[in-house]
């Protein structure tokens, strides 16, 4: 990750030594500038008092001293190369020592930031950030693709357009996805159900791998993905940006724009309105077009914020609406069709390019509305109340129009899932108290799910209550920080009907989870982090009640009402090079033991239906272990070149059958060389060009009898990226050009559910233009 990725800056402050009362302008301010993530000193930051001549530069140990400061409220301004400058209002009455903790790794994702006042605590979790150019070039694709380059993150696909993120082999209900501080609640249980979030609403996405925080829920056995929009402007004026993107493959056009501002004056309103339009046609593999793979999306969001002296009210609304064509060659009625498709090797229907989205298709609408209130006092104490409502409608249309319906009803999905979720979150964060900083809170969730015209999963109402408490102990300059957390959860499913059957069963789950971790900074500023989490996840309704043929996968899934919650012991250890050293990087090891891991086991007897016999899969539990190693590093070669590598190895095993787990990502490595020539400013500003090679091994660790075709062979792809900033008169335009699969290589991915039917997408050239006004 490049240094320009450095985004957030926040600090908390500790008032140290106190010497008698002074009234003259002879106060001495001393202190250290520290990196929050590693808790190591940051050198050469400049510190000044706004509106005065007083200012200084911190030394190589991060230490600074300011003399002749007048008592009263001062505005302290801190800036450093590669960081945005921020100001901090502080009341000074006597000589004071300040510890200014600055985040180098986008810790702005503590969504409760007021003027840089939230309290980021060094964390033992391993988090990685995607923003800037990396996010920009992938924004037109989808959320999961933007994360694909992070080590340990893979993407589970259904065709090229439907993509779900996977962290260390876990996906769906085993990871948490936070959209602007709210847990995304949709039909995430299905492998072909992609997260309904518009990547253009986001400024940054952070992935927390392994057990890190218990703040949002205990079921994140794999990790957490936090996606956050930029904070609203706090300086008077109106500004905006326009983002245009064109793709050669699928001839997709994407346009996204936003307008934002701050009214100032008495109203002190920050606001933003944003929208995205997207339209794409048939995708193309190196050899042929894929029938019915068009997509269209129109998304809209707004937010509003009122700042007060000590508190803040915020509203956010977003609406995501998409239609995806499902590749017709993959829509099969039964096992015979699947076998025919595999034998053919390539799709039967290979039409010319078109933008038509026909049956089979998916239509998804997702709405989020949230209100947020934050009150803060003293040194980083804060209370937050958040209320949200989400609505998700998912309609699936089979290739075949339903029999026996009136023409007016033919536009209604063959299956419609509608899920409405309300949440209330209350949190309290406390600043330094005997070197402890922490947070506690409670969450309440109520969810109602209905499945119309289809009985794959039942209708249910879910009520959940959670309570968490987390503390971190850190005493500067002692190199060790220790953190711990506890969480209690209660969840109740009231299942009413499924298809034509009345069930009327309640399932209740109650459990405790815990996390401990430490961060140790070595003399040379290397950081060692380790944590272990005892986590649990209650079975979801699809695992308990699923009953029916899963379309497209030619399997009959049978739920199991007697499932227990899964219990995981998830341990991670990692070592990180300092973020400001020449060579940056980290290495992590993890071991995730999951007792009562819920998985699909093939049944002895196939299930006979009028569509033929389907292989049956029953939800069973086993003990599973997923372990792996990941690293990433970047090293400069000379002043203008950087070489980087990201690699991950993963192994998942069913401990009872001694067989590998299905759908585990293959080992992979990404190499990249980046060149940033030093050009005269005003020509091609910030020009960069990057060539990367992605190699994905063949997944030969697979369970027997659970798949229809052997895993595809390994493949290597070459991607190329370049971009620069151009000033057209007064208007800055940022131009990025990307070529994915530059050599138009023919390949198939093990984690694509449509790999039986067709190759992956061929070369895709993407041109992105972004302008601000």
């Amino acid at each position, binding site marked *: 990750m490049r240094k320009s990725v450095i985004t957030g800056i926040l600090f908390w402050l500790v008032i140290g030594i106190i010497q008698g009362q002074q009234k003259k302008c002879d106060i001495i301010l001393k202190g250290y500038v520290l990196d929050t993530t590693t808790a190591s000193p940051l050198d050469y930051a400049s510190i000044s008092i706004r509106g005065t001549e007083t200012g200084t530069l911190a030394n190589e140990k991060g230490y600074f001293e300011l003399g002749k400061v007048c008592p009263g409220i001062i505005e302290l301004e801190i800036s450093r190369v590669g960081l945005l400058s921020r100001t901090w209002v502080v009341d000074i009455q006597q000589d004071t020592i300040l510890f200014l903790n600055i985040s180098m790794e986008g810790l702005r994702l503590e969504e409760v930031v007021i003027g840089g006042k939230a309290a980021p605590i060094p964390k033992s979790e391993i988090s990685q950030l995607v923003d800037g150019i990396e996010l920009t070039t992938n924004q037109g694709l989808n959320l999961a693709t933007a994360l694909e380059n992070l080590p340990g993150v893979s993407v589970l696909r259904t065709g090229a357009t439907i993509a779900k993120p996977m962290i260390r082999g876990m996906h769906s209900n085993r990871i948490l996805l936070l959209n602007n501080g709210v847990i995304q609640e949709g039909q995430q249980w299905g492998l072909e159900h992609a997260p309904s979030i518009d990547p253009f609403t986001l400024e940054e996405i952070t992935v927390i791998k392994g057990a890190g925080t218990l703040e949002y829920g205990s079921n994140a056995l794999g990790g957490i993905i936090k996606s956050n929009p930029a904070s609203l402007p706090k300086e008077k004026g109106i500004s905006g940006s326009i983002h245009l993107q064109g793709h050669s493959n699928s001839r997709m056009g994407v346009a996204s724009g936003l307008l934002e501002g701050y009214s100032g004056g*008495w*109203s002190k*309103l920050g606001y933003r309105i944003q929208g995205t339009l997207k339209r794409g046609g048939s995708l193309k593999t190196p050899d042929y077009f894929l029938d019915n793979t068009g997509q269209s999306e129109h998304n809209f969001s*707004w937010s*509003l914020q*009122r700042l007060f002296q000590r508190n803040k*009210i915020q*509203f956010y*609304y977003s*609406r995501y609406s998409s239609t995806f064509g499902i590749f017709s060659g993959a*829509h*099969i*009625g*039964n096992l*015979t*069709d699947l076998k*025919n498709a595999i034998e*053919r090797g390539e799709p*039967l*229907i290979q039409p010319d390019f078109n933008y038509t989205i026909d049956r089979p298709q998916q239509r998804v*609408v997702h*709405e989020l*509305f949230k*209100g947020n209130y934050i009150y803060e006092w003293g040194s980083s104490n804060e209370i937050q109340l958040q209320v949200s*409502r989400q*609505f998700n*409608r998912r309609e699936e249309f089979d*290739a*075949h129009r*339903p*029999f*026996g*319906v009136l023409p007016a*009803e033919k536009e*209604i999905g*063959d299956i*419609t899932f*509608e899920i*409405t979720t309300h949440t209330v979150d209350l949190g309290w964060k406390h600043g330094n108290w005997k070197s402890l900083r922490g947070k506690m809170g409670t969450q309440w969730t109520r969810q*109602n799910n*209905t*499945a*119309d*015209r*289809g*009985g794959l999963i039942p209708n249910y109402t879910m009520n959940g209550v959670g309570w968490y408490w987390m503390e971190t102990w850190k005493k500067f300059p002692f190199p060790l920080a220790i953190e711990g957390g506890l969480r209690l959860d209660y969840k109740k499913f009231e299942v009413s009907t499924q*298809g*034509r059957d009345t069930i009327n069963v309640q399932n209740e789950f109650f459990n405790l989870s815990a996390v401990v971790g430490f961060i140790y900074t070595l003399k040379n500023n290397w950081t060692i982090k380790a944590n272990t989490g005892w986590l649990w996840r209650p079975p979801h309704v699809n695992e308990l009640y699923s*009953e*029916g*043929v899963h379309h497209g996968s030619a399997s*009959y899934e*049978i739920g199991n009402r007697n499932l227990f919650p899964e219990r995981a012991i998830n341990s991670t250890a990692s070592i990180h090079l300092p973020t400001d050293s020449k060579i940056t990087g980290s290495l992590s090891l993890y071991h995730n033991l999951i007792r009562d891991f819920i998985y699909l086991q093939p049944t002895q007897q196939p*299930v*006979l*239906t*009028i*569509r*033929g016999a*389907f292989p049956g899969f029953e939800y069973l539990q086993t003990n599973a272990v997923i372990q792996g190693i990941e690293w990433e590093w970047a090293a400069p070669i000379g002043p203008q070149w950087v070489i980087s590598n990201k690699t991950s190895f993963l192994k998942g095993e069913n401990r009872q059958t001694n067989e590998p787990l299905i759908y585990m990502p293959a080992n992979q490595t990404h190499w990249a060389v980046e060149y940033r020539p030093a050009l005269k400013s005003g020509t091609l500003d910030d020009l960069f060009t990057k060539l990367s090679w992605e190699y994905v091994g063949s997944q030969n660790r697979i369970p027997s009898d659970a798949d229809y075709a052997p895993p595809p062979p390994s493949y290597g792809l070459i991607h190329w990226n370049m971009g620069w900033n151009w000033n057209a008169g007064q208007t800055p335009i940022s131009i990025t050009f990307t070529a994915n699969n530059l050599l138009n290589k023919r390949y198939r991915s093990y984690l694509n559910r449509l790999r039986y039917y067709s190759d992956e997408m061929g070369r895709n050239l993407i041109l992105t233009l972004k302008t601000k006004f």
Partner: protein
Amino acid sequence: MKNIWKLTWFLVLPLILVYCEKDQDQTMDNEEELITDVVMTFTDELGNIQTFSFSDPDGPGGNAPSLDEITLASLATYALSIQFLDASDPMDLEDITLEVAEESAEHLVCFDFSGNISSITISDDDENGLPLGLEAVLTTLQPGNGTLTISLKHLPDKDNSIPCSTGETDVEVTFQVVIE
């Protein structure tokens, strides 16, 4: 006081801007029709009628389907007609065959057989003059056993060299056949 008014519009505005989608719980919940029964009517040269069926009125899963054994005379020729029914609601039997016939170009009934069946020839056409398969002629061999698989394909490629390897399968039922 003035400030309170200003705050009010700030609090109310978001509510105006929200266009909330609601759960449109359709009353016709789960009433999608499906094919539950396949009925085969064999008419011999003398006009004698025999019917055999596959029946799974509760749909996939639940109770296992019932399946007749087909008994035919040896060295005989039968006119065969196929019917697809939705018998999920006993009070309201639906004949899906009519819809298949209506969208005849989009459908094809395929026959696959083994054992002592000599041949099956589709005897009806779709709107484009290509085979449809709701009507066929079957001839039997010597006494013995065999199997007969009937499948209904949706959107097959009828110009393909093996049309029955194309399209999406809506029905696929295999009967045991005894030739007496």
